[in-house]
């Protein structure tokens, strides 16, 4: 008994070990060699700890930013970042185990649905699944579920999303790629459908439809495809301007000048994102191929749902146009949405590029140039509204100055907050 208790209390409460054991299971099921099993398990363990270290850096930087923003503008500004939410949920709130088990549960539900339904999509974008697991666990926490119910409901809802979202996007993906070989596995799909709908209503039709790919765009925007550079381009000036408004009293660190402190803290945020995503890369580099191997065996005619940049080479101009118009939409949203009594959501650059870019492809394929431009702005407004709706629920749970991104994960979490929680209360 003592030994079992020791294992439960000291080992199985360590999220890093739980995730490493899941990877171990996947690798053994695939009959990998002992060396590969050992290497894969260790890399996963290491990845989780690197992720935690990145999270600590992000939280430190966001705490500083929250302070100077409040003193600079007398408003509460929220940085939407799913990476920050995941890091805080895993570490500060101690939800790492629930997230790890939900992650595994979503895999299983996804395979079951694909095996026994006509929708043969296998969701292979590991980090998106991790974000979905995070947000459903947070949703379960909002409802006050116990740990088992959190994992069970998260697995089922996440699993349904993992099949439904690629299925909903597929008619457009077919049009973009010209074939039916791949599907889109990226949990921003609700936003893409919003853009496609807006592009249909406001865009060009039939003969007057002109694709943005017919014109040449300036090459100077291409560096934004570099994730960390594009985060830095916005976050660093944002920190510096905010520090300037807050003044030396709040923004300075000891004898260091307050603008320089703001600059360094902005860089620190990018460092945190870099470290956290390096951890995710280590963490998922083994789990995703293992999952794919198992899924492809169990679901013979499976269609892999892959990360959004897979579509970028098909429509590179639309990516840039989508990024610019979405950013315009998020900036308008930052000023517009607080009028309705909601939080100030600052533009989140990672989503603006990846989700905005993909949304641009959808807008362009449905409604041509005009569709992509008007649809993009509406997409930007939409992805600012969603995190604003979520802020209150997240703050009560103890999240520091952050809200989520990725429209589908927020939609899942809002279902918990606005549908399940009131029903439970009524009962």
């Amino acid at each position, binding site marked *: 008994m003592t030994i079992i208790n020791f294992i439960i209390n000291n080992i199985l409460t360590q999220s890093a070990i739980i995730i490493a054991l899941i990877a171990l299971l996947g690798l053994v099921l695939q009959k990998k060699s002992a060396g590969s099993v050992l290497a894969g398990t260790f890399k996963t363990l290491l990845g989780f700890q690197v992720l935690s270290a990145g999270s600590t850096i992000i939280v430190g930087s966001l705490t500083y930013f929250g302070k100077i923003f409040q003193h600079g503008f007398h408003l509460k500004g929220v940085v939407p970042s799913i990476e920050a939410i995941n890091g805080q949920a895993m570490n500060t709130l101690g939800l790492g185990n629930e997230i790890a088990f939900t992650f595994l549960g979503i895999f299983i539900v996804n395979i079951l649905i694909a095996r026994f339904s006509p929708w043969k999509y296998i969701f292979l974008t590991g980090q998106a699944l991790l974000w979905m697991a995070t947000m459903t666990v947070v949703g379960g926490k909002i409802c006050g579920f116990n740990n088992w119910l959190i994992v069970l409901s998260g697995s089922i809802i996440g699993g349904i999303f993992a099949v439904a979202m690629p299925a909903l996007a597929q008619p457009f993906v077919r049009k973009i790629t010209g074939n039916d070989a791949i599907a889109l596995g990226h949990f921003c799909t609700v936003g893409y459908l919003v853009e496609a709908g807006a592009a249909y209503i406001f865009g060009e039709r039939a003969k007057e439809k002109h694709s943005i790919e017919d014109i040449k765009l300036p090459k100077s925007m291409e560096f934004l*495809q570099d994730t960390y550079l594009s985060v830095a381009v916005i976050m660093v000036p944002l920190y510096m301007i905010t520090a300037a408004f807050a003044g030396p009293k709040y923004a300075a660190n000891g004898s260091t000048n307050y603008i320089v402190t703001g600059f360094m803290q902005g860089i620190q945020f990018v460092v945190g994102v870099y470290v956290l995503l390096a951890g995710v890369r280590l963490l998922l580099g083994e789990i995703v*191929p293992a999952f794919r191997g198992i899924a492809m065996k169990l679901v013979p005619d499976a269609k*892999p749902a892959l*990360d959004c*940049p*897979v579509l970028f080479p098909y429509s590179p101009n639309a990516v840039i146009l989508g990024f610019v118009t979405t950013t315009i939409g998020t900036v308008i949203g930052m000023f517009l949405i607080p009028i309705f009594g909601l939080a100030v959501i600052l533009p989140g650059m990672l989503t603006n590029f990846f989700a905005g870019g993909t949304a641009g492809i959808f807008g362009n394929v449905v409604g041509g140039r005009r569709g992509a431009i008007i649809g993009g702005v509406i997409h930007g407004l939409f992805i600012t509204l969603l995190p604003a709706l979520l802020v209150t629920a997240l703050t009560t749970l103890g999240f520091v100055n952050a809200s989520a991104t990725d429209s589908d994960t927020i939609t899942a979490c809002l279902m918990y907050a606005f549908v399940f929680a009131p029903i439970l209360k009524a009962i």
Partner: protein
Amino acid sequence: MQQKLKIYFICGAGLGSSLASQMVAEDVLAKLGMEEKLEHEAISSAPGLQADIIVSADNFKTQFEKFEMDPHTKFVFLHNIVDSNEIEEKLIPIIENFPS
């Protein structure tokens, strides 16, 4: 035994699409009975990589041109980074003829 080639797959964040491309390439290599060392990374880290071959999407081509890359590194740019036929057509000849 011949030393394995180090092949890196590159995308914007080094998370999703580069890993997807790597998995397809692993299948292609396995089918042909070849074994090399495959990794995936973010474009930010690309200039420091000691890679034999770098595989990326068409839209990253101009960025690599701006970097000072290791002169012995060979490049493969794909239109559809998860198309096994395209990977076989473009990557395999480079592996077979390496280092020329």
